[in-house]
């Protein structure tokens, strides 16, 4: 269960709690995180050999998830990235909408901000709907999540889905302390492949 950490009437979810909810009881779920805050969020939950963190290549997270999901149809793949990172790779929605791997779940933590560069507004803050893009690109299972009950239900579904999922999770625009995972790309790559038995 995610823990409420925001005071007042702000309905948005706490990003660290949301990541924890997504990964609790993850089993053999494979995780790819995008450049920036979602990588720190995953590290805050706990480093894991089955995590591949992006420290660059902004816009690539969803496509890495696609290549991984195609390569390992017996495993479930979760991509968690931010709205800014996803907006930079918007074409990936169209490509994933065509391929529709049944073992890929794509999640965007949407705070309407570019967290790494000073919290400038992103296009989602101006009204661009990533759920709308996902639906228009042919992704059939789309979740627009703004409360803990919906998040808990979605997280439970991550253990046994069999269609391409997209979820936009509305998160609070805060900047929690950074928790940095390893940043050596070769190490991360080899560790991940070893966890899958490929090294």
């Amino acid at each position: 269960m995610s823990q409420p950490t925001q005071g007042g009437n702000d309905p948005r979810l706490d990003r660290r709690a949301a990541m924890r909810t997504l990964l609790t009881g993850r089993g053999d779920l494979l995780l790819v995180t995008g450049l920036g805050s979602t990588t720190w969020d995953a590290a805050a939950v706990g480093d894991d050999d089955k995590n591949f963190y992006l420290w660059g290549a902004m816009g690539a997270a969803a496509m890495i998830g696609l290549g991984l999901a195609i390569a390992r149809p017996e495993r479930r793949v979760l991509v968690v990235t931010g709205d800014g990172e996803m907006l930079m790779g918007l074409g990936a929605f169209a490509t994933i909408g065509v391929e529709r791997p049944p073992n890929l779940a794509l999640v965007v933590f949407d705070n309407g901000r570019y967290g790494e560069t000073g919290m400038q507004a992103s296009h989602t803050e101006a009204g661009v709907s990533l759920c709308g893009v996902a639906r228009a690109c042919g992704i059939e299972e789309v979740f627009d999540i703004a409360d803990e009950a919906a998040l808990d239900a979605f997280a439970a579904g991550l253990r046994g889905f069999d269609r391409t999922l997209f979820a936009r999770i509305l998160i609070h625009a805060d900047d929690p302390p950074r928790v940095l995972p390893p940043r050596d790309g070769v190490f991360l790559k080899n560790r991940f492949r070893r966890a899958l038995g490929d090294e």
Partner: protein
Amino acid sequence: MNEVEPPLPAADWPDDIFAALKAAEIRQIGYVPDAGHTRLIQLCRADPEIRAVGLTSEEEGIGLAAGAWLGGQRTALLMQSSGVGNCINMLSMTKSCRFPMTLLVTMRGEWGEFNPWQVPMGTKTQAALELMDVLVYRVERAEEAGETVIAALDIAFNGGLVTAVLLSQRLIGAKRWVK
């Protein structure tokens, strides 16, 4: 002015490249539709062992290939020289992580090019790749295509690096234009 797709090449170099991809156990192909790669794309799409993924932009292919390698599969990317420009920042990831992959690039902007807008990227394709430490091979004649792709795939996947094979416009045949 209308663009007319060139006929399929008489030489069988796309079949030789396909044989090289099969021998190297390439399991994923990322491509953006391209006249020069028409036959190779058809061959890949028809092969049950290969997942051929159409991309909206070439840079998506670098991510696809990285993910495939994380999952234990080998990928080659098919693109036109203009698409190389779209990939440049993504090649920072392949260098940082030593992700292996091979780019098969049909050249524009050189031999017999009609469209001057193809020239700036076409004439800088090799230099741009080499600036990002991609190992570049070039094919001018049909009979070199298969062996060159074999060499490029070998060193990519044995050495943990990105290689590219530039298929010259003279080999492919300049695009024909009519009024």
